[in-house]
């Protein structure tokens, strides 16, 4: 079973997901992880699909979407192992401020420089307010206040406020 990464982007309408998954099911292609949202009103979906079919076959199955102002890409990907996080080292980083170029670059650059890996990210622009929420894992233990202090300092250089919370998960 090979894995394919499929992206579907473009003008939103009801039924896109149903149409895509029906075509994939007919090809016996299994949708594994996927994430869909609307980005400034545009339909945006990324899927990892397990299938015996070729890239060309799946691309051809989904070619009908192009008449709908949707751009589809199909690429082969390898099976990735997710890395373990260190204990007490997962955080939710929330950023907000007046919109300008370079906010995400500044904050994520700082996170990367401390060895942090972003595992989930949303950026939203509403009115003039820019909001970023990222989940970040560190391989080594990291103190919430230390991380918050460092990211707040970087945030000041681009005029944004930064808040950091430990991303606790409790097993019940």
């Amino acid at each position: 079973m090979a894995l394919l990464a499929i992206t579907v982007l473009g003008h939103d309408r009801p039924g896109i997901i149903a149409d895509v998954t029906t075509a994939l099911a007919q090809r016996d292609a299994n949708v594994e992880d996927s994430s869909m949202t609307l980005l400034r009103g545009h339909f945006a979906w990324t899927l990892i699909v397990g299938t015996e079919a070729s890239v060309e076959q799946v691309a051809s199955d989904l070619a009908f979407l192009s008449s709908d102002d949707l751009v589809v890409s199909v690429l082969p990907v390898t099976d990735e192992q997710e890395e373990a996080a260190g204990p007490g080292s997962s955080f939710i980083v929330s950023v907000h401020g007046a919109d300008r170029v370079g906010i995400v670059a500044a904050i994520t650059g700082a996170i990367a420089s401390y060895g942090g890996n972003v595992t989930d990210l949303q950026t939203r622009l509403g009115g003039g307010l820019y909001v970023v929420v990222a989940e970040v894992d560190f391989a080594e233990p990291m103190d919430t206040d230390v991380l918050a202090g460092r990211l707040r300092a970087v945030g000041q250089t681009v005029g944004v406020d930064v808040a950091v919370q430990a991303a606790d998960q409790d097993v019940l």
Partner: protein
Amino acid sequence: MTSLQVELPAGVVRQVVTAPAAVLSAPCEQVDPTDAEVVQLAADLLATMDVSPGCVGLAANQVGVPWRVFCLDVSAHPKTRTCHGRFVMVNPQILQASRNEKAREGCMSVPDFTGDVKRATRVVVTGQLPGSGESVTLTTDAFEARAVQHEVDHLDGLLFIDRVVSAAAIHKRKVYLD
């Protein structure tokens, strides 16, 4: 505070069932708390919880038994305030729940995911003790309140993934290095 600790026979560790499994998705039956099999199940739930790292509670259907029984012990958890220790409750029913708060929770029966779930931070729950069948009502808060609701949800056939707050609220469970 109500004492919930009772004498039980030696418990046997049982296998924990993981989703998807029909027994996790159906409401459990009311049972007689004085029945010897129920008393043994109470002991087995505690024994199974004790050998499961990080486990603070277990519902009977998580070991494959569709009866309204759960065990709990949040005494070692840092988010615990009010704490009733290590106990088993039979035929539990939540009477009052208030002051919702969102937190990320995981479950032994859903080992690969966590989810953001709103739960009341204050609850009043009533039920019976195994063996004597004595009726007890407990009032609790914070992490014990969350854990009670999670276990009672199990007995109602609900998993945390049935209660997540949004489409973006299901996460891969983090695997921590020791």
